[in-house]
């Protein structure tokens, strides 16, 4: 029997955001094997994809926060992940997001998931701000960061090559 964490789910109009588990693995391994995963270290073989997804899950147990899986309420499909990714080589947690399949793009689902997670980080966890590292060529994610109100942060450059730091602040806070 697998263990499960007692972490409150987040809910939006169309999505349930929950701690990732075995049910999300097929969608995530498929995503990491495709060209669409180029900004997430992909495309990679199944072995590496398993390790990457496994690290997303394990971070929850080690740090007590992590990327949520975003599941469509009406179909149960894992449409993506969103939340603070924090491997050991990052000095601070990084608000990250992805959609598992191109068919989920263009519907505002990533924005919906990110807004709920970021609000949770600020209100429940009390974080003062959170950064996103976005590749200069990842135009879709840059657009989304701007739509979420994040600001380019040149004072704390990204540890990831070819990425800019975008910093999110609570609404109304002065950067």
């Amino acid at each position, binding site marked *: *029997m*697998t*263990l*499960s*964490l*007692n*972490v409150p789910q987040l809910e939006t109009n169309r999505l349930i955001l929950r*701690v990732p*588990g*075995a049910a999300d*693995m097929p969608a995530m*391994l498929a995503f990491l094997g495709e060209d669409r995963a180029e900004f997430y270290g992909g495309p990679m*073989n*199944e*072995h*590496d994809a*398993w*390790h*990457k997804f*496994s*690290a*997303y*899950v*394990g*971070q*929850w*147990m*080690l*740090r*007590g*926060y992590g990327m949520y899986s975003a599941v469509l309420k009406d179909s149960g499909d894992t449409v993506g992940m969103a939340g603070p990714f924090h*491997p*050991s*080589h990052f000095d601070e947690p990084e608000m990250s997001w992805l959609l598992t399949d191109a068919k989920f793009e263009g519907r505002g689902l990533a924005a919906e998931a990110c807004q709920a997670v970021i609000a949770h980080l600020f209100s*429940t*966890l*009390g974080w003062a701000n959170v950064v996103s590292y976005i590749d200069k060529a990842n135009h879709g994610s840059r657009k989304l960061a701007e739509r979420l109100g994040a600001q380019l942060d040149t004072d704390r450059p990204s540890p990831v090559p070819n990425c800019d730091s975008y910093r999110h602040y609570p609404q109304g806070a002065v950067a």
Partner: protein
Amino acid sequence: MSMYCETLPIGVPGQTAASFAALVPVLHTKRLTLRAPRADDYAVYAEIACGPRGEGIGGPMTREEAWYDFASLASCWMLQGHGGWTITLTGEDRAIGFVLIGAEPGDEEPELGYLIAEGSEGHGYASEAAIAVRDYAFDTLQLPSLVSYVFATNTRSVALAERLGAIKSGTVIYPDDDQPSLVYRHPAPKGTPDV
């Protein structure tokens, strides 16, 4: 303090991490306590995985790779229902090694893996921990079989597998490895090899 240092989370995340740790069964042996892996054990894991001793587990690894590998010790509990333990000396809470029941894609059966920090070698801690976890795998988890994948060049691990009574049964090559692994099959309880 090494560059790999990680500290325990505090506040709400600290409670979440602690609630996970409480779900992992604690195993006791004569000298050892095996408990859930925690963020503050990572420095010991990375020192093994990122150094020459990491060769036995597909390394030496980068700091990034070591984190992913370490996090998998924890995630297996949620993905597979068994996973990794941090090995500590009873009475001390400090990590001296790690032991794992895990299965990666391509593994046909669960694997028993073990790692001991350099400073804690030569005391039989790895075999003491591995025996406890092997017995837990068969007696409590009721796993039908258990193997260890060991590089032939990893003489220390080969010796330990044989000391545990595991029987060599073939080889396997993993996609990222440059050499085959020997498959050691652990005997089921009462000494009956599970073939």
